[in-house]
């Protein structure tokens, strides 16, 4: 009786210890699983943070550079524009003082001829005005005027720089052949010419 009781007690305790060991083992396995999952989740989150950082870094870099490139492009354009404008002012100065040059008579005659042809009237009225021009300089103009045409000489340069304006007798058709008008009409060609000469573009 006593021996079998002891065996029973031992069996009860042995079962309990076995159950306890199993419980601990399961807990340890679960703990390992928790840690492994946490390690993987942490790695994934870290990788996501770094990937976002790389995208943000590229955006910062692009923002800084594009802003700088824009500013510098504007500086270059502004400098080129100033150079071109300086040249155009010099051109205007030379044009406005053309009366002193040998080219004047030919130029004035050509301007008158073009204006008269553009107006296409039997009795055109041609107004002419250049800086520092004398009547002597304009002697040749009458030769290119059609019969019945009228020449009006302005004492002041027309449109500031000088030139020629032709109209029909009623003043309905007007052709402006002043330097200022020619500069405006030839604006694109002029800018291209100056740019290609100075900048080689």
């Amino acid at each position: 009786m006593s021996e079998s009781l002891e065996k029973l007690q031992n069996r009860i305790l042995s079962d309990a210890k076995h159950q306890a060991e199993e419980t601990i083992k399961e807990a340890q396995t679960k703990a390992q699983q928790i840690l492994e999952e946490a390690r993987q989740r942490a790695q994934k989150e870290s990788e996501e943070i770094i990937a976002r950082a790389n995208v943000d870094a590229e955006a910062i870099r692009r923002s800084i550079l594009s802003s700088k490139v824009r500013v510098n492009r504007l500086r270059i354009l502004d400098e080129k524009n100033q150079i071109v404008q300086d040249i155009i002012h010099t051109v205007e100065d030379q044009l406005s003082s053309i009366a002193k040059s040998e080219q004047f008579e030919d130029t004035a005659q050509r301007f008158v001829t073009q204006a008269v042809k553009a107006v296409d009237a039997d009795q055109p009225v041609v107004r002419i005005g250049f800086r520092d021009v004398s009547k002597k300089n304009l002697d040749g103009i009458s030769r290119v005027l059609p019969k019945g045409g009228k020449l009006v000489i302005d004492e002041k340069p027309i449109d500031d720089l000088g030139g020629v304006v032709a109209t029909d007798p009623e003043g309905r058709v007007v052709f402006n052949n002043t330097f200022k008008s020619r500069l405006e009409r030839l604006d694109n060609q002029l800018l291209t010419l100056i740019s290609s000469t100075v900048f080689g573009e």
Partner: protein
Amino acid sequence: MSGIDAVKKIVETEAQARRIVDEASARAQHIISEAREQAERMRQEATTRAQQRREEILREAKEKADAEARQSDVETEQILDTYRKLSEERKAAAVSKAVELILNA
């Protein structure tokens, strides 16, 4: 040993067995609880390291971009100098061609 004593012994033994199982259960809970805490610490540390690396990446990107921006300034100054020199050298030719264009077009 009487039958009553034997039953008593069995009851005591079963109580001892229950304690063993209960203690194991409490220890198991503790193991899991510690694992969860360690997992959270691990996650926090990894996130902190990643955030520090992020700051480093952003700072390096800004420094690099600032350096490139300074280089762009240098190159722009060189271009402006070149244009000024070209302007000095070629202004007379450009004026002459432009005057010719306006006079003869």
